[in-house]
């Protein structure tokens, strides 16, 4: 993408991007059934609102930008999420567990660790049902699902690009696979504090449960085990494919005028093969027990087509630095702590993947305006890694701040509600859980690390 385009585009060209993000944020809260039925049309409208005038005015250049974002970002993103979701959906944890504070804390800790390797969505899907089963007999269980959302559906995903979509987008744009291990300190700090808080709260509530609840034992004792365990091998395959695509550079090919690394095509082909392999080799009953359908992949395919199309002018304006129409944002966000909060607060209410991309590009526009993106990212990592750490942790951690911040949040909420766990309202979630538990931890993170 040339810096020129970024200096020419007007600020209002960001309206369709804001529109699709706000639609994703507001419709599920205000009109869930309407949104469930009509989101493809609404996404199409926002997408066309950008692409038609964009192509009309900038013609060849606009076409190149759209093809570039489709082939270099959108398709790999969709393939990774679809693959992890399908493989995760093929693993079912069976067994009888008793939802004591120790067992619950252990499930949360395991999920936090797993999230970085099978994605927050995959880890949430694999573990939410065993957690709900273990706590089915308890009266107090809402807090357990909320902390599961904090840790497994969000914070746990910060260690690798497989963990959370924002980090995979960073990887696609040139952040090395193993760079995210640098976030381990922040991740362990936040996870330890939250696990300790959870254990304290759950112990208190456990003591207040009726005696028959505390002495409850499952009627039939089923040994803990995995169905579809062979999918772990498919997961390893994904891991290898992604890592290899980051270190092996056999050259480029040109597809529809877009230069694409051969390693990326190989990675995506391997992942599609792993997806199909997992799907065909996993018994249907396992998918059914996890509630797996193609629905979520369809949602990601449709909504992210609109997001990736409409984000084009925003990224171009940001990359142009202070010469672009979004110079105000670049000037407003200066320090790593400001990047942490700005990325985090917006990730709380808008999807965190495009928010991450927006602030990564803001940092690049601020430090290296006009420089090719991959080169600029290497400079950013070498010279100001704290900025990338702030953006990454802000996007991943604060996706937990509301139901809107990260895709698995709504999934966990729905599964819990359908299993009979009453979840707090949108504002109840923030006031009763985020403000007392997450906010103090994030203030500490900003103070200690940024």
């Amino acid at each position, binding site marked *: 993408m040339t810096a020129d385009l970024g200096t020419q585009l007007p600020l209002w060209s960001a309206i369709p991007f804001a529109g699709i993000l706000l639609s994703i944020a507001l419709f599920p809260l205000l009109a869930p059934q309407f949104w469930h039925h009509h989101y493809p049309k609404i996404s199409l409208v926002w997408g066309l609102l950008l692409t038609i005038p964009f192509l009309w005015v900038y013609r060849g250049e606009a076409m190149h930008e759209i093809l570039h974002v489709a082939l270099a970002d959108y398709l790999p993103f969709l393939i990774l999420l679809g693959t992890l979701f399908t493989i995760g959906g093929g693993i079912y944890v069976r067994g009888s567990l008793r939802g004591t504070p120790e067992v619950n804390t252990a499930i949360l800790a395991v999920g936090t660790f797993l999230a970085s390797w099978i994605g927050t969505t995959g880890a949430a899907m694999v573990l939410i049902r065993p957690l709900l089963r273990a706590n089915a007999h308890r009266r107090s269980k809402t807090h357990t699902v909320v902390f599961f959302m904090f840790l497994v559906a969000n914070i746990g995903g910060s260690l690798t690009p497989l963990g959370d979509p924002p980090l995979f987008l960073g990887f696609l744009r040139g952040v090395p696979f193993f760079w995210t291990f640098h976030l381990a300190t922040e991740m362990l700090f936040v996870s330890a504090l939250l696990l300790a808080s959870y254990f304290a709260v759950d112990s208190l509530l456990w003591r207040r449960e009726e005696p028959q609840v505390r002495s409850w034992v499952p009627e039939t004792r089923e040994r803990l085990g995995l169905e579809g365990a062979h999918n772990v091998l498919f997961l390893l395959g994904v891991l290898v494919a992604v890592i290899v695509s980051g270190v092996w550079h056999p050259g480029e090919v040109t597809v529809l005028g877009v230069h694409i690394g051969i390693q990326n095509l190989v990675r995506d082909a391997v992942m599609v093969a792993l997806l199909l392999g997992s799907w065909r080799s996993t018994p249907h009953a396992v998918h059914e027990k996890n509630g*797996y359908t193609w629905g979520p992949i369809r949602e990601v395919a449709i909504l992210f087509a609109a997001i990736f199309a409409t984000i084009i002018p925003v990224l171009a304006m940001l990359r142009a630095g202070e010469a672009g129409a979004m110079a105000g944002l670049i000037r407003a966000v200066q320090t790593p702590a400001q990047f942490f909060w700005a990325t985090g607060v917006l990730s709380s209410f808008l999807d965190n993947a495009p928010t991450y991309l927006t602030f990564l590009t803001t940092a690049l526009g601020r430090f290296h305006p006009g420089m090719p993106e991959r080169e600029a990212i290497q400079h950013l990592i070498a010279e100001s890694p704290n900025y990338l750490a702030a953006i990454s942790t802000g996007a991943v951690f604060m996706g937990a701040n509301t139901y809107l911040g990260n895709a698995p949040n709504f*999934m966990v909420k729905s599964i819990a509600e359908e299993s009979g766990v009453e979840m707090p309202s949108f504002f109840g979630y923030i006031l009763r859980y985020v403000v007392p538990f997450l906010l103090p931890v994030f203030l500490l993170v900003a103070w200690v690390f940024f």
Partner: protein
Amino acid sequence: MRWYELIIDGPEDALEALLPADAIRGSELRLASESFTDRVLEFLHARTHHVVFASEDHVREIERDLRVESLREVVEGRFGFKAEAYNPEIGAKIHDALNTDLPAGIMCVDLEKEERHPDAKGVELFTPAHDYIYKSRGTIVGTPPGILEMNRRLHRLDFIHEEPLELVCREA
């Protein structure tokens, strides 16, 4: 039989030990005008004042064993409620609570319905919708102990939200 609202001063343990079995604790109900401090103290089991409802048979006994700071006769009460659940079993539980074995003189449901959306079956990431929804709302009006019993019954259920119980009382 007359029912009374008593404000009792004393520790939680004394209350646990000395209250008659059929007295209804204020903490079992959704009462109006509970402050945030009250709720924190309740959570920590550290309240010093407790609201209790008891029949006239038991009032004298309570007055003898505990320190009663105020005593009022409950004439009648009312509260609104709204329920929304996403699981047929929970929907049935709420339906039963609202329609089965109602205490004498209690009238309630204004609206009750079930919706099924088969296309919303399975998990969703960005377009969350439930394939089953139970909804009801209404106002419950009646005299004690029925109104207290209904409030306690609904307060024990999830997915149903009661408005604070408004009581009409007169000085005893």
